[in-house]
């Protein structure tokens, strides 16, 4: 019976989270600040911008978790705020469009190496 339950649980785990490959969750402070965590979808951005725009011009380090992105910096036009300024893309007043993850979603890259990819067997 226990084995059956374990088997069922294993079957359910991959079904629970099927985020798109390369989605990044930012949640260093979101939960603590009472807002939803941020979902950064790589697929959406790379249709519009090459990697080098964010990872070279905007200064985002390539390792997920290596960037300490604060709302104050975004409002000052740094990080996301270089485009999310109501000129290139929607502005930082549109909270819900970025802060869109389920509360208590842990930070990190999902849909990639940490989940179905072979880097974390």
């Amino acid at each position, binding site marked *: 019976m226990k084995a059956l339950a374990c088997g069922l649980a294993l079957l359910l785990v991959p*079904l*629970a*989270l*099927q*985020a*798109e*490959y*390369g*989605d990044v*969750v930012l949640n260093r402070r979101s939960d603590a600040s009472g807002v*939803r965590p941020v*979902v950064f*979808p*790589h*697929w*959406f951005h*790379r*249709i*519009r*911008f*090459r*990697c*080098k*725009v964010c*990872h*070279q*011009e*905007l200064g985002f380090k*390539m*390792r*997920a978790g290596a960037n300490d992105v604060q709302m104050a910096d975004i409002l000052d036009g740094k990080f996301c705020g*270089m*485009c999310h300024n109501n000129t*290139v893309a929607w502005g930082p007043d*549109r*909270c*819900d*469009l970025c*802060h*869109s*993850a*389920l*509360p208590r*979603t842990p930070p990190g*890259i*999902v849909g*990639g*190496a940490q989940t179905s*990819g*072979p*880097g974390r067997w």
Partner: protein
Amino acid sequence: MTGAWRKFFVWGLGIVSAAALAAAPALWIALEKDGLHDPANPGIKLLQQPAEALAPLPRDTAGNLVRWVQALDSGAINPRTNILPGTPVRVLDQDIIVSKFGSMPAVKFPHRQHTLWLDCSNCHNGLFKDKIGANKFSMVAILNGEQCGLCHGAVAFPLTECNRCHSVPNASLRRPRAAP
């Protein structure tokens, strides 16, 4: 079969196949069902769905199910190369062959495909030294998210696609001269 029955049969078949098509599993999960986005968030209705954006692009079998380089080369997408007007846009058309004569086919690293997306400084000289032969590659490190694995397995095509990198038969390469 009478005309009425034939009509009934044809219509029935049509409805059944339409239902089967509608029930076919979607290639990309809708945001509100992906277990990541909060379906209760009012803003979710305004976000673009992956299926809408990715379905028209060249199809792949892994990752986002998109052949991203082919999407660039075919002109299906033309993402911006820079935001600041003064940023130099550097593309290098040069292939490097590494990991020769191992148990796997050798690896061809194409600079062109990488520099279409990335700047030189994204890899050099932090991740990799810009000198042929100066970098020691390890598949264990790569599988643990280091070296190539920083992107491949996270955003670029995943590490299940061995032959996309290990693509050069060792037999096609010149062996180093045996020591006398």
